[in-house]
């Protein structure tokens, strides 16, 4: 029914003993996510969440003992790049980084290293993933949308929840929702997630929620028009955003002439891809 995460996902949470880590671990556990371990350097041997989840000092030891195959990172920004590298080196296949504010240089380093490895990174500055009824990895609320056949991929957080709520009101459900993150350098772009949705037998159509900055939407548009058989509806936020200003997300900036919402919308439309003017219009454009 899903991409990237499902009931088989055995999740490790890096930074599980912090406020955010604990809060979301508790929440994810209640929504059925199979959390097998936490990692906090110096706190190995402790147990959290009423003694249900063991804490390890390193990702490597957590994997060895529990067989974890995915990792979610809540580590503070000074240590977050290191946490991603540790997960890569522990052969974790899916790494999701929620942490916001990692320096660009550090992320370019991480990506250079990642390109030679098998791990897939989602984020940083990502709200995570949700396969309703299956697994919830990150901070996306699990109860605002039901399972269905629509794949949702987005650079945003609350805007994605807004889209999910609109789908729910129209009695539509989601296979998997992926928040790729709001940073300029991301582990996975729209392209990589669209490839997965295209292959997933339970996803029939896809919603792409983009915003100003970078060329990720343009690259996605090219792939959709050339390679995808499934219909895609796009929405791009930031038509009113002024050039040269970072609109909240580190990656949301129109640089010179590149990255404006209008340019992205034109690219989609010129390639015959439907673009919603506002979120509530999306259901009408779906098949």
């Amino acid at each position, binding site marked *: 029914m899903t991409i990237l995460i499902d009931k088989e996902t055995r999740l490790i949470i890096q930074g599980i003993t912090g406020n955010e880590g604990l809060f979301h671990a508790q929440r994810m556990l209640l929504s059925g996510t199979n959390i097998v371990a936490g990692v906090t350097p110096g706190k190995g041997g402790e147990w959290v969440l009423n003694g249900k989840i063991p804490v390890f000092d390193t990702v490597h030891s957590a994997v060895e003992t529990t067989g974890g195959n995915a990792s979610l990172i809540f580590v503070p920004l000074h240590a977050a790049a290191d946490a991603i590298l540790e997960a890569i080196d522990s052969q974790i296949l899916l790494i999701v980084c929620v942490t916001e504010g990692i320096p660009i240089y550090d992320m*370019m380093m991480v990506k250079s290293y990642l390109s030679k490895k098998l791990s897939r990174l989602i984020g940083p500055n990502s709200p995570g993933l949700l396969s309703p009824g299956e697994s919830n990895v990150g901070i996306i609320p699990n109860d605002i949308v039901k399972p269905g056949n629509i794949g949702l991929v987005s650079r945003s957080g609350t805007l994605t929840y807004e889209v999910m709520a609109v789908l729910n009101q129209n009695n539509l459900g989601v296979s998997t929702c992926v928040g790729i993150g709001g940073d300029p350098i991301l582990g996975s772009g729209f392209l990589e997630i669209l490839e997965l949705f295209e292959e997933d037998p339970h996803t029939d159509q896809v919603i792409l929620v983009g915003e100003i900055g970078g060329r990720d939407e343009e690259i996605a548009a090219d792939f959709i028009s050339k390679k995808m058989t499934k219909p895609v509806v796009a929405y791009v936020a930031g038509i009113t955003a002024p050039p040269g200003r*970072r609109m*909240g997300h580190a990656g949301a900036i129109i640089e010179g002439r590149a990255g404006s919402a209008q340019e992205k919308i034109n690219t989609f439309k010129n390639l015959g891809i439907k673009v919603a003017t*506002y979120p509530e219009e999306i259901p009408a454009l779906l098949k």
Partner: protein
Amino acid sequence: MKLHEYQSKQIFSKFGIPVPRGRVASSSASVKQIAEELGSKVVVKAQVLSVGRGKAGGVRLADTPETAETLATQIMGMTINNLPVYKVLVDEAINIQKELYLGIAIDRVNSLPVIIASAQGGIDIEEIAQNSPEKIIKINIPLLLGLREYQIRSLALTTDLPKNYWRLFMAIANGLWQIFKQYDATLVEINPLVISGDSRLLALDGKIELDDNALFRHPDLVELRDLDMEDPIEIEARKYGLTYIRMNGDVGCMVNGAGLAMTTMDMIQLFGSEPANFLDIGGGAGAEKVAAAFRLILSDSKVKSVLINIFGGITRCDEVAKGIIKALDKIKPQIPIILRLEGNNAKEGHELLARAKLNVVDSFNEAAKLAVESVHKA
């Protein structure tokens, strides 16, 4: 964070990149003195973090120290793209033989730094890219290797740089790369890099932009921030950990999440008005944060109505509603406030707001429409 030309050139000097002799000044009297010291024709350049200062008359050539003083007085009274000019850079005037472009930026598509050179300089690099893309060469810098000499030779060759300047060009490119790496820059740019009449290769203008997310490891660079170049409301917002960006419209907005905040602005425009600001209050949205956000929005006198758009994901809407009621009670705004609360516990939130006699709207579209209409009524 953007640095001024004079700050960038000081850093260039530190890294062995030749720049014209010159100094920054904030009074016309000291401009005269600097010009006298330089003992040559000088260029007086407005130090303002905006493009188009040349076209606005912010860069002028002066034959004598007296002219430099007069011009400085004019320039320091100017406003360029809404930014005041408080400082000028006084540089020795350079006789230009050839202008090139050399810069390092972030290539988001390849997730690597990219060094860019062009045989044509002195104008906007994007203009060159559009009009004569064949004149531009771009090379990605592999992070694990750094900038290599063979790459720099390719740049020199493509830009037709005479071979007697190659050694110096190599040092300049390396200097730029060191600055980019050591300062966590997102852009270091020499435009133009010139060959002077007396056969020197030097940076006539310079631009450095730093990664805001990396400033925590460069406390010395944070001090270079020029608050005169920023909107006072934006400076105030930063103190509360809020991101506020001033716009030109009359509908204020307060939203949780950057993407939703942009969409809210777009919707205000779609329904016939313009947003007064971008404001992301983030998660949580307790009374104190909401109150601070209100004060920021209302300090802009153009604002005639305020749209609050909150999507309660993890945060419960009733908690947010309590924060809003408390904040409004404290601030007592005299203009229409339109609220829209959706998501987790929305019903409970709506009940609380209705009891406090606040205007709650169910749909996003309706809320945006109402916020715009109430401006036209006001």
